[in-house]
């Protein structure tokens, strides 16, 4: 994606550590405080109108990163700048004013809608709370939003329980768009849906993104979907980003061994090609006691002594393609 586009979001050395419970024994023995480093030193930029994919195994900190950026969590250190304005330590009414600019589409369309609120109320509430439009114009705006998401006003008085997963996800999308946000986080928006419905929602998301010039952070563990919909991809492993680059380049020429594993692990849709040529052993280590040096080294087939001791920096290996590895492929 072009660097010429204006910068929308700038994340700089962002960390989110969760303190772990200390037992009385730990306090008596004066052990150091332990943290779960869910997000550790992540930096990246998001340009206006682009769709950045965020991929990684479960527990690697994808959702925590997104929630910290949206200020649903207080960052431990580092900064988040939206349109040049530092939002990482905003509080109260300032933060409230900021909310309409950043919205989220959730993974689970079953638990993210209030079962006792009609579709109309769900969307109208957003408009009322943030005073987006005068009260008289609310019905028109709700209708516009529902139409945009492929629904009709006929369903406005019905309740979430009456809808299928795909329709609920459309309601969730209409709600996220209601405040005309500049930036949307889509946290696994299609993972809970069936294949045929998934395609409908993917089409809807990419259409809306183009029409409204939305900036999206698209979190997914499904690499086929990420490859289809995003412009750039960021790969996370154990709380840090290990590679960022244009989507096609990441998939065709992954530079980090972990990215290579991820891109090859997805089962191929070809029964004639069943070679599992490159599988990875083991599972991600616990984020509480992370390995020394490069965090990926215990699972990496190319690991050397340097990897065990030195932490690799995120370096540019090609224009716009960054990788944190001592020996990029």
């Amino acid at each position, binding site marked *: 994606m072009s660097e010429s586009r204006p910068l929308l979001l700038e994340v700089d050395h962002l960390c989110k550590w969760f303190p772990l419970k200390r037992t009385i024994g730990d306090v008596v023995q004066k052990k150091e405080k332990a943290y779960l480093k869910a997000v550790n030193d992540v930096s990246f930029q998001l340009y206006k109108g682009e769709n950045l994919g965020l991929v990684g195994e479960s527990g690697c900190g994808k959702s925590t990163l997104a929630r910290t950026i949206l200020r649903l969590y207080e960052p431990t250190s580092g900064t988040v700048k939206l349109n040049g304005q530092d939002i990482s330590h905003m509080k109260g009414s300032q933060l409230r004013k900021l909310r309409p600019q950043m919205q989220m589409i959730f993974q689970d369309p079953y638990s993210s809608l209030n079962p006792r609120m009609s579709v109309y109320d769900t969307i109208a509430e957003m408009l009322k709370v943030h005073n987006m439009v005068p009260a008289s114009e609310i019905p028109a705006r709700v209708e516009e939003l529902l139409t945009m998401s492929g629904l009709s006003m006929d369903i406005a008085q019905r309740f979430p329980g009456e809808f299928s997963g795909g329709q609920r996800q459309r309601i969730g999308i209409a709600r996220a768009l209601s405040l005309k946000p500049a930036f949307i986080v889509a946290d696994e928006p299609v993972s809970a849906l069936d294949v045929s419905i998934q*395609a409908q929602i993917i089409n809807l998301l990419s259409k809306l993104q183009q029409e409204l010039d939305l900036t999206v952070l698209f979190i997914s563990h499904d690499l086929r979907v990420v490859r289809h919909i995003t412009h750039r991809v960021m790969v996370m492993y154990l709380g840090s980003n290990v590679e960022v680059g244009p989507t096609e380049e990441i998939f065709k020429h992954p530079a980090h061994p972990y990215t290579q594993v991820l891109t090859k*692990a997805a089962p191929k849709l070809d029964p004639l090609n069943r070679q599992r040529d490159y599988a990875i052993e083991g599972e991600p280590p616990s984020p509480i006691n992370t390995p020394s040096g490069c965090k990926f080294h215990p699972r990496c087939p190319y690991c050397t002594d340097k990897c065990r001791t030195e932490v690799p920096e995120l370096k540019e290996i090609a224009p716009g393609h960054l990788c944190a590895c001592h020996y990029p492929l």
Partner: protein
Amino acid sequence: MEKLLEVKDLHVAFPSKQETVHAVDGVSFEVFEGETFGLVGESGCGKSQTLRSILGLLKQPGRVTGGEILYKGADITKMNQRALQKVRGKEISLIFQEPMTSLNPVLRIRTQMYEAFEREKLTKEEKRQRAIELLKLVGIPSPETRLDEYPHQFSGGMRQRAMIAIALGAKPKLLLADEPTTALDVTIQDQIMKLLNQLKQELGMSIILVTHDLGVIAQMCDRVAVMYAGQIVEMTDTVTLFSKPRHPYTYGLMGSLPNEDTAGTTLEAIQGSPPNLANLPEGCPFAPRCKFACDICHKERPEITEVEPGHFARCHRPEITQNFQGLIQVPGQADGKEEASHE
């Protein structure tokens, strides 16, 4: 190859006060020795209920309302609990989707493993040895210590491995796997698929694999049945299914998968959503979503027919489906027909 399991015209219904849901509506298929048979479809298509009824494990109020399930010639649906107990585990075994919830959290792994070979009257030491062997087989490191741990001390992939080990405990001839990799990360899914393929080879088992993921089907199955609204709509070997699908639903599913070449394009999504099983349309259940549907499709239910030797499809319009181009090209097969239906 010997026929191991034969399901004939199976019907499963979930009656309730208001309505009866026909979750499985006339499903027939065969599983041969040493093969992996896949059942693929979307949620609510009846694939899991078909699988569960094989072991008589339908959840209340579901019950088999018609048809036969013949395992080595004996009808499972007619068996009493005592006879079923002899089939379960020893002959046919099951692994579930969620390794998080299907292990008992308050029992040690060893206790849960020993249950599988309870009936063999082994000594304590023999049991332990057997359990260690099984854990080794499924690739759990340091099984001697792992055996004494509880499920919460295992990660997701390890729990799935432990569950596979339990399922293999009594050396079953047939393993039923209900979405065995769905809850796992791709890297772990890759490992589990590899493990299942390898175990099948080593132990000569047959596997029935239920999944919604065509990728898993492509990587693991010899033959596949595609299910929609409680019926099998297409059944053939995996390569043929991926190269020449003969049902608009299968074709639609393949079109709605994003792949390397679709970036920036609009996916050919199937419109609408699956029908309500309690209230199916009069004609073909897929007709309301099918872009090739014509008058007869809305009026009459299609029968399953053999469109080519070994290739079954349930569609009124074979003249249209024969032009479908699948996701792969089989080398060596002359490609006489044009890619007519690919817009």
